[in-house]
């Protein structure tokens, strides 16, 4: 058992898989000697060599495409994209190939790979470094999207993603990369994918969130608890496919739902969750579903980035409004 931050947990999980599965290769810009711009791969090249932990040329589409080629030929590549803002050249490869390869070859080929990227705002970064566009990948059939929100889940879910026989986009909330430490046992045990994690049980209202927003949401739940409002907080964890049974079970209990995400509202993953609950949980609802999200604007530069994002008070207000409905 060791105390580790979320990014330590990423590094530890990568090391475990590099150690135990010779098919695993980490590749990306600056992942080698430099250990990644956020140090997610720190020390891995020294430990596993420059073949297993490769610095690549600077071309994200290339990184994804090469990874797909490797995956199709029996390797398990773990490409890193430095920032979500630079992930878009991979979209062609991910949607046209990674998500389709198994299907279009009727299972003759598959694409076990994990495309890692830090995402989200709140670190005072320059332009293009703060977006949350997980919904782009959640919309791609055949691709899993996984977002951890604690060191323990970063470790367990990344192991699971690497071992998953299909492509996974693993997005790491960089604002909480080093925020907290947690006791995590480096035992190679994966956590289940495709399920939510209930971080707090409650009876009055269900709050669904993911990534760094779990912190704001849990704080809001604490604050509301002082007013005797009992919030159930669910970390979505696997953004696609969504474990809607857990959400519906919670909504059945509470009758109320607030969805919190950093990404812009329109066509965000929150819209999908709201739609699922409307389709399958309408008769359990006591009040309209509310979303607390980023605005449908270009992510402001960092002097205003926190005003863009959901905050504890925005969440608390949404919960109170929902309880009054």
């Amino acid at each position, binding site marked *: 058992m060791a105390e580790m931050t979320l990014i330590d947990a990423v590094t530890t999980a990568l090391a475990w898989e590099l150690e135990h599965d010779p098919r695993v290769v980490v590749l990306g810009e600056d992942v080698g000697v430099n250990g990644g711009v956020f140090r997610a791969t720190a020390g891995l090249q020294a430990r596993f060599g420059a073949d297993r932990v490769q610095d690549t040329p600077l071309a994200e589409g*290339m990184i994804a495409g090469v990874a797909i080629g490797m995956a199709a030929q029996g390797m398990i590549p773990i490409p890193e994209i430095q920032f979500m803002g630079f992930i878009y050249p991979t979209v062609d490869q991910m949607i046209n190939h990674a998500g389709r390869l198994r299907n279009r070859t009727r*299972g003759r080929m598959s694409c076990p790979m994990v495309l890692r990227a830090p995402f989200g705002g709140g670190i005072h970064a320059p332009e293009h470094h703060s977006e949350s566009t997980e919904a782009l990948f959640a919309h791609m059939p055949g691709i899993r999207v996984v977002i951890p929100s604690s060191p323990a889940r970063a470790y367990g879910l990344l192991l699971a993603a690497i071992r998953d026989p299909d492509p996974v986009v693993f997005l790491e909330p960089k604002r909480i990369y080093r925020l907290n430490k947690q006791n995590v046992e480096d035992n190679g045990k994966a956590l289940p994918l495709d399920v939510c994690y209930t971080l707090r049980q409650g009876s009055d209202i269900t709050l669904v969130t993911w990534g760094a927003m779990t912190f704001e949401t849990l704080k809001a739940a604490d604050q509301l608890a002082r007013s005797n409002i009992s919030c159930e907080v669910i970390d979505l964890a696997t953004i696609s496919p969504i474990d809607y049974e857990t959400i519906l079970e919670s909504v059945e209990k509470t009758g109320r739902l607030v969805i919190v995400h950093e990404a812009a509202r329109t066509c965000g993953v929150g819209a999908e969750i709201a739609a699922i609950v409307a389709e399958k949980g309408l008769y359990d609802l006591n009040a309209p579903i509310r979303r607390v999200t980023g605005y449908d604007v270009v992510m402001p530069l960092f002097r205003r980035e926190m005003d863009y994002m959901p905050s504890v008070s925005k969440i608390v207000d949404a919960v109170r409004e929902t309880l009054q409905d």
Partner: protein
Amino acid sequence: METIADFEIQYSQFLDPSGKPSADIPDFARDSGTLVEMYRHMVRTRVFDNKAINLQRTGKLGTYASCLGHEATHVGLAAAMHKDDVLAPSYREYGAMLYRGVRMSEILLYWGGDERGSDFEGPKHDFPFCVPIATQCLHAAGAAMAFQLRGEPRCAVSVNGDGGTSEGAFYEAMNIAGARKLPVVFIVVNNKWAISVPIELQTASKTLAQKAVAAGIPGIQVDGNDAIAVRHWVERALARARKGQGPTLVEAVTYRLSDHTTADDASRYRKKGEVDEARRLEPLIRLRQYLTDLGAWDATREKELLQAVAEDVDAEVQRYLNMPKQPIEAMFDYMYRELPEFLEEQRDHATQYGDSNGGHHG
């Protein structure tokens, strides 16, 4: 000022359009049996291609991209490859795929709207057709990286057209392959047209082979209508790659004698005279003439070959036409290794509607 880097691009041809040797014939081609075998594959490809167009024209096949005129390049590159090398084709390399063991009925299934067309009985490790232009170059690089990391003496070969050389992925693939000396050969089938855009509007480069220069890898231009040249230079490139000396770009200059696809009408954008001229240069004429001049081929053998190939093609067409549609649930069953629960629900929904839910004829 001084010149710190310079380049030159070689061009190679062994058989001229009339079938006369224009250079010393390489060793492998001194065995007429080898050339006859290549010729058989080229004829087979052409007969198949012609049949596929006819199937499309008679409503038995969807849109089809003909490979007319590309036979020498296709067969030449495939003949150069080892069986356990990996081919990453675009969507027109039937000659190469057939040579490597893909069934005609599989190619027809693909263009006939059935995913099983990409589930080759063999070669199992080859990449399927690739429609997004030049993206397969990266897959070849990735495959080569896998071979390199595992220390396997295998190579990857990607094939894209002249149009694909404008794509970033084409350059990106050469670039990383060069940087890491990956065992991969990039083949550009320069058939002069990216649908309706002629090569002059695609690039200011005199050759496409010189696109290799920026990636720091060798590039060569060969006569893509000369099967001997294609095979020879791809063999050389593969040998080089297998020895750990890195990738090569081979530009095979040919001509797209057909429309871009059966849905296209090339007469809208190119002159008939140009096509007629190109037809004179096409690859079967010269190889047949060369073999005839060697005494290794004659009209009887030609007739027998056409007869045998026609039977072969007909049998595969029948196999294709007799293949029932996949069950509806097949669209779900290969999305993930294990079907996620949310898809089970959609799968049930789709199957409830059965075949009655519109759709068109296979």
